[in-house]
Structures are given as C-alpha cells and as structure tokens.
C-alpha cells in the first residue's frame, strides 16, 4: 500500500491542494483512499466536506494502538460519479496541543501514525503534513514510504525545498532509506515572468525530480471552497484541465497506480508558460 506524505516546512505552498488533488485522482479511479490530515488548521478535513468529525487523527496519535486508523477514519462528503469517496483521518485545531505532548512522551512518539496505519486495507494513503517541523510532520514522514515535496514558483518556497529534502534525507538515513523522495510538485504555476523564472530555477536545481506543474486556476480554488473534488466539478472552466494535471501527478508519484498506456514519468513542462504579462492568470 503506497503511503505518500505531502510535505514542505514552508507554509502556503499548496500542500493541502495537492493532497486533495491526488486523493481526487485516485478516488476517481475507484481506488480506496484514506486522507490523513495532520495539519491542525484542518483544511484537508473541511475540503473533504467533513465538519465536526466524531473521531480524529488526534485520537490515533494518542491511542498508540496498531491499526487504529481503520476504525477512526470517517467517510467524506465527496461524491464522485463512477468513483469512490475517500475516507479521512480528520484533524481539528485541538491537534496543535498534541505535538508538545508527543515531544515529552517518555517512550518516544515519532511512529504513532505508522502504528495506526498498520494493517489497513486502503489502496492509497495520502498524508497532509503541517507547515512546520515538529512531531506531527515527523510522524507523517515516519509513516510514509514516499514523500512528495510541494512548492510554488517563488524564492522562499524554493529555499524550502532544500530544507525539506534535508529533513527527509536525515530521517531516511535512520530508517533504511524510507521515505524516498518521490519528487517535487510545483503548485500554482502562474503566467508571470517571476513564476517562470523560479520554475526554471527548480528545474535546473532538481532536474527530473520536478514533476509536471499544477497551474494556477480558479477552478482549483473553487473546488476547495465548495468542498468538492476537482474531478467532480463538472463543466466548470479549467476543472478538467486541473483534474488532468492531478491525474498526471498521481501517475508520477504512485506509478503502481498509473493508468495503463500513460507514461509514469511525465516531463516537466515549461513550453506552455508565457514569459510576458505581469499578472497571475487564473
């Protein structure tokens, strides 16, 4: 079972958007998907249409019980025609107080999520990590077999890629190479010269680790606002293009789940980006 940690210590780069996009792509293929929301802001939880969940990931982290995720996950409100709605191990703002408790746990608490996910029968688990380096993020990386670094084309976000790569490599060095860096997802690529510049910088620095980008589109923001999957947004302009980009990203990050006949290593795209114009087009 692939377990993907969507991670960057830098905030605001779109980890939750990419998490939900991947979940939407996999669920749309009929896969049994679990989203784990490790961010106390709980945006992935609300993006899945779950409000005031009866059970949360906080309980799983506290319980220290193998396989607890299956019983604590709740169904989401997503509806996918021909697909299968994912489950979510939901978050709440109360999760923020769990982190210092985990840090002081006398027997170590870095593998609580890994323990909770043991033995579950999901086809794919996607973990939305918080935008900080703490025990919640470490739990996410300990549980994952691969990490997807999300960034946006900008100076500080690009700096964040190097930092999170370092974090992953240090954990992997102590964990027998796990998690592997699946690659870098460039999110919200706009049409400005600046976006093009930083996207090119990422391509030069990280080469074929950089996946085909997810472009900035109003449809993606609207899907979040309506707590709908991007694959379920119907005929809204840009929705099918965005859905296709997340399909391509899923193929690249989880090649064992790739659609037949589709190359799993999508080339990073630069040609379609306009280098003129001063505003971020949506």
């Amino acid at each position: 079972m692939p377990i993907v940690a969507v991670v960057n210590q830098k905030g605001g780069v779109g980890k939750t958007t990419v998490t939900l996009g991947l979940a939407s792509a996999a669920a749309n293929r009929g896969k049994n998907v679990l989203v784990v929301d490790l961010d106390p802001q709980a945006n992935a939880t609300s993006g899945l249409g779950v409000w005031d969940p009866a059970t949360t990931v906080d309980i799983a982290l506290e319980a220290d019980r193998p396989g607890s995720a299956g019983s604590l996950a709740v169904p989401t409100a997503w509806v996918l025609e021909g697909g299968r709605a994912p489950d979510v191990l939901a978050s709440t703002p109360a999760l923020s107080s769990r982190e210092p408790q985990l840090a002081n746990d006398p027997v170590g608490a870095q593998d609580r999520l890994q323990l909770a996910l043991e033995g579950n029968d999901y086809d794919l688990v996607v973990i939305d990590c918080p935008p900080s380096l703490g025990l919640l993020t470490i739990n996410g990386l300990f549980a994952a077999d691969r990490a997807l670094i999300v960034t946006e084309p900008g100076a500080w976000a690009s700096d964040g890629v190097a930092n999170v790569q370092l974090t992953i490599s240090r954990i992997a060095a102590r964990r027998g190479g796990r998690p592997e860096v699946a690659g870098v997802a460039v999110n919200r690529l706009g049409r400005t010269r600046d976006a093009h510049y930083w996207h090119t910088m990422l391509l030069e620095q990280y080469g074929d680790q950089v996946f085909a980008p997810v472009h900035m589109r109003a449809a993606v923001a609207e899907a979040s606002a309506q707590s709908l999957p991007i694959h379920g947004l119907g005929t809204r302009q840009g929705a099918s293009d965005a859905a296709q980009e997340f399909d391509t990203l899923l193929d690249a990050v989880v090649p064992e789940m790739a659609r037949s006949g589709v190359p799993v290593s999508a080339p990073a795209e630069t040609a379609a980006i306009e280098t003129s114009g001063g505003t971020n087009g949506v």
Partner: protein
Amino acid sequence: MAYDPQKTRNRPTPAADRPAPVDAFLDAMAEVTVLPEGIDIDVTPGGDTIVHTADADISITPAGDDVIVSTRDALVEVRAELDEVIVEAAGEEIFIDTAPRAPSDLADWSNAPVVHSDSGRSKMTIAIVAAVAALIAVLVVTRKRR
C-alpha cells in the same frame, strides 16, 4: 533568461553537510524505551503520567520526589542527581540512563499545560523508568521461577 529577480544577489547553495533541525528530534529519540507487552504509558494534558499494567494503573505526578521501588524480588535505587536508576534483580545489576530525552528547546513549542523537560520532568521520567523497571524485574524473576 533576461528576467532575473535576484539581480546579482544570487541565493547561496546550501551545504550538503549542514546541520538539520530535525537532528535534534531524531537524536532525542535515538534510544526508544521498549516496554514489555501489556504495559503502556500515557502523559495526560495536565502533566500526570499513568503507567498502565494488566493489574493496575499507576499514576505518577510531577511532585519532584525521588522514587524508590522495593519488591520481594527486586530493589530499585533511583539516583536523581546522576539521572540513573539501578535495578538489582536475580543477582544482576542493571543501570538505566534516565536523562531527559527531549531536547530542551522542544519545551518552547507551546504554552499548553504539559510537562516540560526541566528537573521535575527528569524526576518524573526516573519515576516512570523505575516503576517499569521494577515491573520488568518482577516479571523476569517470576518467569524464571516457573
């Protein structure tokens, strides 16, 4: 590329061998205590620590007192100043390092009412280890006699 927002102030390439913040966490977690089957430990939001066993739940509060556990089969001697515990059982002496495991800066994460890595915390950790060590010793000796 004509457009260059960095001008001449290009960002430095980070050194591959630079220290990583995550090291502090990983070092603190390097030695994970493995508890015997059936024994579990919880830290409550109020700072109390509860050792769950098959027979009883032992609550340890951060009062700061040293803890000595004496059973018929084992003697547990807590040396708070040295951050160590000595367990004598079945003719063996076992030394346990009870130095606080979390790096001191972790305590600054939050103002939530939780136990911090100060001396009281150290003593509580010692108390937990002592209680668990005594239980382990009793279990070991009991099994040997069977």
